């Protein structure tokens, strides 16, 4: 097929995804004729909305091997993370005040942990290995008698590395500690099963799997063990009292439909994304030297490719490929001027953290788009290296590590 490429090309699927047309189609009636409040028990408008919500609950549950009663709808993963961590810490305060997490977690987890520390909790931040992984042995060594929760992500949002959740889950089960996993990047991309993998709480977000923004879910185990949570949003007692607030019915219907598609198409889609990702990586590495893969070489998300290009700063590279939408772990893309905390935790080196680019491949990515992106990257890296004093020094045979740099900030 020789269709003209539509620019710009979207290769940032770990940031968000477009709503699948089939998802949108399922949602639309719930903005229009089926606009009822799912909590209205006295008329057909409410019953229809409630039926749609319960159907979506089953769809979400099926995607992660849970049952419908274990699904709490939220506004997204950040809220679900807040509810899980604060809800467990509050509910189990009499058992202990210790949590275990990792330095490579999303800010939603890290900032919630910081908040809990202010309230008197103690948090152990495990240091990941160079590929961003946490080992079951690290978790075992960190769990104490007063540990109430281990919080570790399924898949890392920046470098795509998968944690060995099943093995970590087994350790937590043996030790009698609850395990929460942020599976925002994992659901719909890799196989997730809360029973098989011994997970007690898990969050997911619709907009990372071709659903709408502003809706997500928290899985809360009901059996072996039954997990209890202290609600963080009080009100009308929706979601069995764990999350009050009128349900976002169209969003929930969209999340359910997105999970249904993710579940039924997972195998085919992940194989397709992996092939495109490998193709992109091979094309870039064939044409450019001094390229490093960030993250685990095999245990990673099929649609994620995080590369560092030596001697080239990430933001300037993004500028050079302006019709390809990607993101960078470089400081300059954020207001903080700090490079990615994930790459720092992995010890990839601050210079390489500044040189990193995350490519995210997804459901609607084509081979033509990947080829275009590869060409654009190669061209821009070559141009910027010609402009780079670091490349010049390396060409002269100078080891950059031996230079006394004068940092100005």
């Amino acid at each position, binding site marked *: 097929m020789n269709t003209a490429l539509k620019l710009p090309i979207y290769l940032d699927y770990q940031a968000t995804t477009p709503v699948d047309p089939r998802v949108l189609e399922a949602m639309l009636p719930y903005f229009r004729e089926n606009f009822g409040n799912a909590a209205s028990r006295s008329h057909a408008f409410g019953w229809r909305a409630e039926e749609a919500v319960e159907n979506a609950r089953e769809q979400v549950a099926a995607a992660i091997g849970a049952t419908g009663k274990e699904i709490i709808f939220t506004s997204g993963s950040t809220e679900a993370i807040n509810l899980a961590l604060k809800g467990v810490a509050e509910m189990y305060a009499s058992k202990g005040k210790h949590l275990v997490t990792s330095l490579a977690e999303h800010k939603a987890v890290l900032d919630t942990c910081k908040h809990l520390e202010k309230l008197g909790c103690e948090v152990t931040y495990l240091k990941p290995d160079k590929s961003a992984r946490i080992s079951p042995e690290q978790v075992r060594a960190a769990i104490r008698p007063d540990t109430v929760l281990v919080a570790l992500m399924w898949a890392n949002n920046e470098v795509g590395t998968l944690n060995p959740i099943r093995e970590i889950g087994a350790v937590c089960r043996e030790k009698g500690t609850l395990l929460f996993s942020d599976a925002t990047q994992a659901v719909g991309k890799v196989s997730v099963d809360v029973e098989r993998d011994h997970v007690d709480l898990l969050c997911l977000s619709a907009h990372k799997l071709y659903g709408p923004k502003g809706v997500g879910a928290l899985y809360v185990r009901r059996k072996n063990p039954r997990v209890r949570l202290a609600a963080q949003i009080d009100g009308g007692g929706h979601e069995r009292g764990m999350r009050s607030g009128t349900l976002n019915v169209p969003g929930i219907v969209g999340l359910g439909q997105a999970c249904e598609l993710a579940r039924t198409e997972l195998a085919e889609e992940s194989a397709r994304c992996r092939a495109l990702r490998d193709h992109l990586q091979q094309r870039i590495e064939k044409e450019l030297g001094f390229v490093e893969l960030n993250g685990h070489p095999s245990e990673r998300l099929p649609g994620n490719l995080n590369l560092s290009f030596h001697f080239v700063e990430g933001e300037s590279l993004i500028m050079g490929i302006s019709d390809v939408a990607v993101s960078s772990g470089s*400081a300059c893309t954020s207001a903080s001027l700090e*490079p990615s905390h994930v790459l720092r935790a992995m010890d990839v080196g*601050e210079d390489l953290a500044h040189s990193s680019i995350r490519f995210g491949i997804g459901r609607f990515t084509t081979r033509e788009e990947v080829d275009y992106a590869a060409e654009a990257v190669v061209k821009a890296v070559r141009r910027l290296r010609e*402009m780079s004093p670091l490349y010049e020094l390396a060409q002269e045979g100078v080891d950059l590590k031996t230079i006394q*740099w004068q940092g100005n*900030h």
Partner: protein
Amino acid sequence: MAYSDKVLDHYNNPRNVGALDKTSPRVGTGVVGAPECGDVMKLQIEVEGDRIVDAKFKTFGCGSAIASSSLATEWLKGRTLNEAATIRNTAIVEELSLPPVKIHCSVLAEDAIKAAIADYKQKQAEDEAPHPTARRA
């Protein structure tokens, strides 16, 4: 982040990219920044008498850092050393419409100018005997 047209222009068509002979007594070289901070600028000036006749740069850094150093080389050419020493980062900020988060790029460019001038002056001082090229100028 949206870039100003001038930043985009310098990024897409950088002026005076390249290198001068750093061993020449007429060339002053300034290298500032650090790879760990995400920006390194190398700025070089070639001087005849007290006037800068050529300037070159190479920069590892974001688009604003590249634009700041490119602009600096443009401004340096034809100026005397004393005039060059008065270039302030605020003028670069203004010319390129840099947002607050990018002001450090202009500071780095000013530092690079100062470092290049200092390097040139040091070379001259070390070379107390009148230099053939200096005499000719």
